[in-house]
C-alpha cells in the first residue's frame, strides 16, 4: 500500500493531463488482459464492424457501441453490474437472451466482467471508435495522446532518484564494476582496474568510484564501439543488400564508423539526426565536415532493396516507404508505414500525412543506375568524397603518369599505322569468302579489324579464301595473321595462287608472329609479271589478283583465319626504316603497363550517400490509393506529421526545387518536437536498466505502451535538450543515480516486470558483449578499429547460386571487436546471430531475448569458445601455481569476483578428476574455463 501511496504523490502533479493515472493504468491493463480478449474471441463474431454484424443492434468493438447499447437497451452501465444487460446475458440468469449463444463463459470471465463494470468499465476503445471502422483521422483529438503532448517543464533541482525512489541497496563493488564496464564499453574490467575500483569504493566512496570510472570509460574509444551498435540496430545497418540480389555494400563501413565517432565525440543528438537525414544538404565549413555529413546519410541508404524489381516506379516508392518507416520508428517511435495504404488504423496519421513526407523522400535518389548491364537491376547512389591533401597529390601524380603513358601509346599506334600504310594491301577475314561454321572471336588481341575467325574441332570442313587486288604487278611479300599461341594448329595448310601457279604451304600457327606482333611472312611471290624468283615456278602473264586459301584439312588444333597482307618488295625497305623511327614496337608491353597503372590508381573515396534527384523536378507526390504504385490519388503538398506538432511547426514551408529533406531534418530535431528527445532518452535508459520507461521503444503510438514513469521520461528529455542533446551527459547522469546502482534482483511476484524499478534488472549480456569479453579475457582481442571488412567479397556478398566467399564461413577466426565484424545479410557471423543479433532488415530498438539450444551448442562445441578457453588456460598455467590459485584467477578474470568455498571445491574436484583421467593440467583447466564461459553467471549482466 505504501508503494501505491508514493506513486499517487508522484502523479498528483500531473492529474490535469490526459494520460493515465496509475489507477487507471491498472484498470486499462485489466481491460486489455481480461476483458478485450474475451470480447474479441466470443463477441466480435456477431457484434463488430469488421464482422459486418451487429446482432440485436449491438456493437461490442467500441466503447460507443455499448454506450449506445442494443435493441434491448444499455448493455453496460459503468459502476452497476447488476443493471448491465451483458452480465445477465453471460451469466445466463436473467430473462434476457443468453450469450454467447453456443458456449458458456467461464466463471472467471463472468467475475472479471462484473469487476470491470463495477470499477467503472474503463475502455480505451472509447478514445476512438472501433479500430476497424473507417473514420476520418481527428488530428486535434490525436494530440491529446501523451506522446504528442508537449513535454512537462520542471523548476528547481531534480534527480532521477526523486522520480524512482530506488529501494534496493547499492550493488557490491564486484557486481558494480562489472556492470559499469559491460554497460559502458562492452568489455570486462582487467584485474588492475578491478583492484582500483575496489580501493576507491572502500577507501573513498562508492559514488566516487562510479563517478571516476564512468568518466574514464566514457572517454575511451571502446565506449563508441559499444554504443554505436545500439544505434546500428535501429538503423538496420548491414554490409550487404540482402534482398533478391545480395550485393556487397563496399562503402557502408564509413557510415558504421561515422556512428562510432559520433558517440565518441559526443556529437549532439539533434545534429547527429540532422546529418543522417540531410547531411548532404547541410552547409559545411571544411572538406572533413562535408565528407562526414555525406557519409552520415548512409542512414537512408543501407536498407535492403529489391534491386531487381522491374517496375521501377514501384521500387522508388518502396524505397521511400522503407526510409520513412525507418525514420518514423527510429527517431519518433511511430509506425508510419501503416499509413501507406490507408489512414493509420491506430495512430492519428492520415494517409495524406504519409504522402506529404514520402514526397520528401521520393525526391531523393537512393537506387540508381544499372548493374551488370541488366536494365532490370538497379544500383545505388554513391558520391565521391572530397579527398585529403595527400590523396589528392597522389592522385595528381598518378594522373600525369597515366597521361604520359597514354601519349606514348598513341605515338606508337600512329607509327604502326604509318608502317601499315606503307605496307601495302591488307585483306581482312570479313572480305574473304568463307565456307563452314567459322566462329567469330576476339580472344587473341593481336588481330586485324573487329575480330578473327576460328574453327571448332569436329565441326568442319572449313575453308576461307582471301583475294587481293594489287595496284601493280610485281613481287610481293605475303604475310598472314593468326594471333599465334598454344592450342592452335601446328600444321595449317595454305594455298597461294600467283603468277607462277599454286604453292602449298604448311604453317605452324602456334608460333609468335614476327612483325609488329601481328604478321607472319610466308614467302615472296610474283603476281601479274614473269617470275625472276626462286619461289615462283611458272609465268602466267596478266594476273594482278592474289589469291590465298586456308582450310582445316588435317589441322591438329584450331585454325585461325584473320587477314593477309601483301607488301611490294620495293616497300620492304621503307617499312624497315619506319620501324626504326619508332624503336619500341611492342605495343603490347606498353598497353599492359597502362592496364597495370590504371588498377593502381589511388581510389577516390566514395560514400553511400543520399542525394536529391537531379533528373526529375523536385516536388510533391500523389497519394497512391491502397499503396499501389499505379493507382494515383490527389497530389499532397510536402510537409510533416500534423499530430506531432509544436509552436511554429506549421510555418515551415518547402518550395519547389527543394527536396524538403533539410526541413524534415530540422522539424525532427526542433527542441520542442514532442517525440524525438523522448524516444532517444528512452533508448539510452533501456540499455542501462534493461527495460525502457516505454517498453515498446520503437512505438510511442497508441499501440505502444504508456510510460511507467512519465515525469521521469519528460525530465530526462528536458535535461537532454537543455544539455545540448549530449548523449554522454545523459548516460553519465543515469549511471550516477542510485536507481542504476541498485543491486540486481529477481523481480517479485507483485511486480514481475520490475516496472517500479525497485532494483536493477538482471539482463542477458548482448551478443557483442559475450564475444568481445571472451576475446578480451583470453588476451586475443584485436583492438584496432577496422574500415571495410567486406572488400574481399567482390560484387556479390552471396551469389544467387549460394556460392559465397570462403571468408564468410570463417568469421569465427576474426579477432576484432564485434562491431567491426562483417554484417552480410543472410550470413551474419554465427557468434553474433545465435545470440540475438537483430534481423538486419528491420529497425530494432529492443532486441529479442531468446534462450535456444543453438546458443548452448555454440558454447559447447564451437571452435571459437574452445580455442579461447585454451588461450586462457595457457596464460594461467604459464607459471607454476596451485590449482587453487588458478581457480581464484579464473573467477577474477571471467566472472570478475572472488571464488567462494563451493566454487573452489567444485573447481578442484573437476580439474583433479580430469587430471586423474590422464588429461594434462592445461587441458583440464581449458575444459573448466569453457564451463565458466558457458555459465549463466557469465552470460548475464547483474
Amino acid at each position: 500500500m505504501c508503494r501505491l501511496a508514493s506513486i499517487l504523490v508522484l502523479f498528483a502533479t500531473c492529474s490535469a493531463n490526459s494520460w493515465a493515472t496509475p489507477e487507471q493504468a491498472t484498470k486499462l491493463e485489466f481491460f486489455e488482459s481480461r476483458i478485450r480478449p474475451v470480447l474479441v474471441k466470443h463477441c466480435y463474431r456477431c457484434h463488430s464492424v469488421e464482422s459486418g454484424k451487429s446482432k440485436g443492434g449491438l456493437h461490442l468493438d467500441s466503447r460507443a457501441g455499448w454506450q449506445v447499447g442494443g435493441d434491448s437497451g444499455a448493455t453496460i452501465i459503468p459502476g452497476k453490474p447488476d443493471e448491465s444487460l451483458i452480465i445477465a446475458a453471460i451469466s445466463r440468469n436473467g430473462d434476457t437472451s443468453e450469450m454467447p449463444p453456443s458456449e458458456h463463459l467461464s466463471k472467471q470471465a463472468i467475475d472479471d466482467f462484473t469487476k470491470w463494470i463495477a470499477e467503472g468499465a474503463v475502455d480505451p476503445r472509447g478514445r476512438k471508435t472501433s479500430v476497424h471502422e473507417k473514420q476520418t483521422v481527428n488530428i486535434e483529438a490525436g494530440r491529446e495522446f501523451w506522446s504528442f503532448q508537449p513535454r512537462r517543464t520542471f523548476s528547481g533541482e531534480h534527480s532521477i532518484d526523486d522520480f524512482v525512489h530506488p529501494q534496493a541497496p547499492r550493488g557490491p563493488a564486484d557486481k558494480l564494476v562489472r556492470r559499469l564496464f559491460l554497460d559502458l564499453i562492452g568489455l570486462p574490467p582487467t584485474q588492475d582496474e578491478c583492484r582500483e575500483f575496489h580501493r576507491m569504493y572502500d577507501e573513498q566512496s562508492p559514488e566516487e568510484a562510479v563517478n571516476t570510472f564512468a568518466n574514464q570509460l566514457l572517454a575511451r574509444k571502446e565506449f563508441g564501439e559499444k554504443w554505436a551498435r545500439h544505434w546500428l540496430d535501429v538503423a538496420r545497418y548491414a554490409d550487404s543488400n540482402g534482398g533478391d540480389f545480395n550485393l556487397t555494400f563496399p562503402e557502408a563501413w564509413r557510415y558504421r564508423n561515422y556512428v562510432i565517432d559520433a558517440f565518441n565525440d559526443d556529437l549532439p543528438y539533434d545534429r547527429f539526426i540532422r546529418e543522417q537525414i540531410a547531411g548532404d544538404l547541410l552547409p559545411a565549413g571544411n572538406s572533413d565536415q562535408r565528407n562526414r555529413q555525406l557519409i552520415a546519410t548512409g542512414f537512408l541508404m543501407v536498407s535492403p532493396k529489391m534491386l531487381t524489381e522491374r517496375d521501377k516506379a514501384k521500387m522508388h516508392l518502396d524505397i521511400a516507404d522503407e526510409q520513412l518507416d525507418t525514420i518514423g520508428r527510429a527517431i519518433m517511435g511511430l509506425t508510419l508505414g501503416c499509413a501507406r495504404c490507408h489512414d493509420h488504423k491506430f495512430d492519428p496519421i492520415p494517409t495524406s500525412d504519409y504522402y506529404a513526407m514520402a514526397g520528401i523522400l521520393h525526391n531523393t535518389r537512393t537506387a540508381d543506375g544499372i548493374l551488370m548491364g541488366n536494365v532490370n537491376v538497379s544500383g545505388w547512389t554513391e558520391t565521391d568524397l572530397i579527398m585529403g591533401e595527400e590523396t589528392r597529390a597522389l592522385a595528381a601524380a598518378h594522373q600525369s603518369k597515366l597521361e604520359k603513358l597514354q601519349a606514348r601509346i598513341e605515338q606508337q599506334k600512329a607509327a604502326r599505322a604509318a608502317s601499315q600504310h606503307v605496307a601495302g594491301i591488307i585483306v581482312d577475314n570479313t572480305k574473304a569468302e568463307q565456307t563452314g561454321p567459322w566462329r567469330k572471336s576476339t580472344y587473341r588481341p593481336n588481330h586485324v579489324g573487329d575480330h578473327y575467325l576460328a574453327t571448332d574441332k569436329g565441326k568442319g570442313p572449313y575453308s576461307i579464301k582471301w583475294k587481293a587486288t594489287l595496284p601493280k604487278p610485281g613481287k610481293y611479300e605475303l604475310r598472314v595473321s593468326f594471333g599465334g599461341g598454344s592450342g592452335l594448329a601446328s600444321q595449317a595448310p595454305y594455298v597461294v595462287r600467283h603468277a607462277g601457279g599454286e604453292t602449298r604451304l604448311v604453317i605452324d600457327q602456334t608460333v609468335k608472329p614476327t612483325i609488329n606482333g601481328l604478321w607472319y611472312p610466308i614467302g615472296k611471290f610474283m603476281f601479274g609479271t614473269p617470275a625472276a624468283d626462286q619461289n615462283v615456278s611458272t609465268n602466267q602473264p596478266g594476273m594482278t589478283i592474289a589469291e590465298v586459301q586456308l582450310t582445316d584439312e588435317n589441322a591438329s588444333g584450331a585454325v585461325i583465319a584473320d587477314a593477309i597482307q601483301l607488301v611490294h618488295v620495293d616497300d620492304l625497305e621503307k617499312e624497315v626504316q619506319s620501324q626504326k623511327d619508332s624503336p619500341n614496337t611492342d605495343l603490347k608491353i606498353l598497353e599492359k603497363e597502362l592496364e597495370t597503372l590504371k588498377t593502381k590508381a589511388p581510389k577516390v573515396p566514395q560514400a553511400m550517400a543520399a542525394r536529391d534527384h537531379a533528373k526529375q523536378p523536385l516536388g510533391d507526390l500523389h497519394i497512391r490509393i491502397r499503396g499501389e504504385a499505379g493507382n494515383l490519388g490527389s497530389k499532397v503538398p510536402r510537409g510533416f506529421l500534423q499530430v506531432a506538432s509544436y509552436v511554429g511547426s506549421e510555418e515551415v514551408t518547402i518550395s519547389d526545387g527543394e527536396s524538403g529533406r533539410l526541413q524534415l531534418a530540422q522539424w525532427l530535431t526542433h527542441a520542442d518536437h514532442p517525440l524525438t528527445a523522448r524516444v532517444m532518452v528512452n533508448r539510452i535508459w533501456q540499455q542501462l536498466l534493461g527495460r525502457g520507461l516505454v517498453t515498446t521503444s520503437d512505438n510511442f503510438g497508441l499501440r505502444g505502451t504508456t510510460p511507467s514513469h512519465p515525469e521521469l521520461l519528460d525530465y530526462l528529455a528536458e535535461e537532454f535538450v537543455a544539455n545540448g542533446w549530449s548523449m554522454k551527459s545523459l548516460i553519465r547522469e543515469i549511471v550516477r543515480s542510485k536507481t542504476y546502482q541498485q543491486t540486481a534482483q529477481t523481480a517479485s511476484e507483485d511486480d514481475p516486470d520490475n516496472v517500479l524499478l525497485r532494483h536493477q534488472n538482471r539482463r542477458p549480456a548482448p551478443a557483442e558483449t559475450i564475444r568481445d569479453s571472451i576475446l578480451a579475457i583470453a588476451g586475443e582481442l584485436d583492438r584496432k578499429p577496422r574500415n571495410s571488412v567486406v572488400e574481399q567479397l567482390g560484387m556479390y556478398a552471396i551469389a544467387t547460386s549460394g556460392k559465397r566467399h570462403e571468408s564468410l564461413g570463417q568469421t569465427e577466426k576474426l579477432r576484432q571487436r564485434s562491431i567491426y565484424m562483417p554484417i552480410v545479410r543472410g550470413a551474419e557471423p554465427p557468434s553474433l546471430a545465435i545470440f540475438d543479433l537483430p534481423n538486419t532488415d528491420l529497425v530494432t530498438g529492443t532486441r529479442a531475448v531468446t534462450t535456444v539450444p543453438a546458443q548452448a551448442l555454440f558454447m559447447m562445441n564451437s571452435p571459437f569458445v574452445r580455442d579461447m578457453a585454451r588461450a586462457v588456460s595457457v596464460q594461467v598455467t604459464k607459471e607454476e601455481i596451485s590449482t587453487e590459485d588458478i581457480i581464484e584467477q579464473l573467477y577474477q578474470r571471467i566472472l570478475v569476483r572472488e571464488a567462494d568455498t563451493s566454487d573452489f571445491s567444485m573447481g578442484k574436484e573437476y580439474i583433479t578428476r580430469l587430471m586423474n583421467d590422464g588429461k594434462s593440467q592445461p587441458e583440464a583447466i581449458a575444459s573448466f574455463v569453457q564451463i565458466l564461459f558457458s555459465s549463466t553467471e557469465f552470460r548475464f549482466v547483474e
Partner: protein
Amino acid sequence: MKQCHQFTPDITRRHWLETTACGFGALAFQAFAQQIASAADSPHSLPVYHHAPRAKRVIFLFMHGGVSHVDSFDPKPMLTRFHGKELPFKGLDHLDVALKDKAGNGRLLDTTWKFQQHGESGLWISDLWPHLAKHADELCFIKSMHTRGTSHGQAVGMVHTGNDNLLRPSVGAWVSYGLGTENRNLPAFVSVTPPAGHGGARNYGSSFLPAHHQATTLGHSGSKTADATIEYLQNTDSQSADQQRQLEMLNRINKKHFLRTRDSQVDGVIRSYEMAARMQGIAPDLIDISNESKSTQALYGMDRKETTDFGHRCLLARRFCEAGVRYIQVSTPYIWDQHGGLVKGHTKNALAVDKPISGLLDDLKQRGLLEDTLIVWGTEFGRTPVVQGKDGRDHNPAGFTVWLSGAGVKSGYSHGSTDEFGYFAQDNKVHMHDLHATILHILGINHEKLTYRYAGRDFRLTDVYGEVVKEILS
C-alpha cells in the same frame, strides 16, 4: 500476442532443479530417431488448433526457379496447333521476352514432351515426369496458381513468406509459432539445403517472430547434401564422455547461480543446455542415412549419379518427418530457369528430382506417414507459353501449377485451369496467399487468427488476403 509455448509449470521445474543432484546426464544422450517421437511424451509445446487438423506436418518440395507447367502438367493443344504463331492477346509486362524481342505479344512455343492421362483419375502428366506419373491417383493439382513478382527475388519471397519484399516471417516459422514442435528434442522447422540466393536466409527466417521459430538448416541449396549438417552440432575435439562430465559440472555451477537468484531467465539458459545435449544425442543419427537399406536408398534414386543428391534430400525429409518435425522444406538448387535451352535444361532437372520425389511418396505411403503428412510441391512461378530466344520460356507468375498430396487433400484431383494457351490462370484462380491459407487450414490453423503483434499491428502470414481452397480438401 498468442502464447503457444507453455513450458512445464515453473513450480515443478524449480522443484526439480532444487532436488535432483544430477539428473542431467541421464537425460542427455538418448539416441535413435525411432525413439524420438515416443520420447516426446511431455511435448515442448501444446499446439492450439483453431479446428481439427487434417495433417500433422508438411513437407514442402521447392523447385527453385520456375517449372514450366505447359511442359509438365498443363497440356495445351493450342500450342501445337499455333506453334510459331503470335499469341493472340497481350501477355505480361516487365518480362524479358518483351524487353529483348520487342516482338508484339510473342510467338507460341509447342511443348516437346508428350502428355498422357495416368491412373484411374486420368490426370494429365507429360513424359517429362515418368515416375511421378505412377502416382497420379495420389496427386492433387492446382492448375490455376498465380503470384506476385516477375523477378525471382519477389516470387521466391512470395512463396516462402507471402510477401514480395521478403520482410515477413516464413511459412515454416508461422507454423512453428502456431503449433510448436511435436518433438521436444528437435526444432519444429527444418529446411534441407535452403535457397541461398533470392533472399537467402529470409526464406526460412522468423523476421519479427521470436528467433527460435526460424528454420534449423542443413547446408544450402548449392551444397552437397552428403556434407550438409547442423551448425555446431558436433564437437570435433572432445569425447562424448568428457563432454558429458563437462556438462554435468556446468549444470552444477549454473544451478548454484539459479539457487542464488531464483531467476527464471537463468533457468531458461540451463534448460537450453539440456535441450542442446538431447539434440546433440539425436540429430547426428537422424542426419546419418548410412543405416538405411540399399533398397530404400535405391527407392530414392540414390543408386544413380543423376538422382543421388536430391534423393538424399528427400530421404532426409522422410527421416525428419518420422522424428516429428512439423515443417520440412527440401529445395533444389537454383536450376529451374530455362530462358533458353528449355528441352535440355528441363530434361536434366526433372531427371534429378522425379525419381526421388516418387520414392518419397512411396516410402511415406509404405510407412503410413502419408496419412498425416501433407506434401506440397511448388515453384516460384510457371513459364510463358511464348518463346524466349530460340528455345526458352520466360517467367510466368500469372498462371502455373503446383500439386499437393497426402493428408487433407483430395487425391487424383485437379483444380482450376489456365486459358487455352496456358498464360493466365482463368477458372478457380488460386493465389499464393490462398495456397498458404490452405496449408495452414490443413494443419488446423485459421490463417486469419494466427497473428503476431509487431510494431503495434497484428501481422499474419496472408496479410489481408487469402482464402482456403475448400474444393481440394479431402
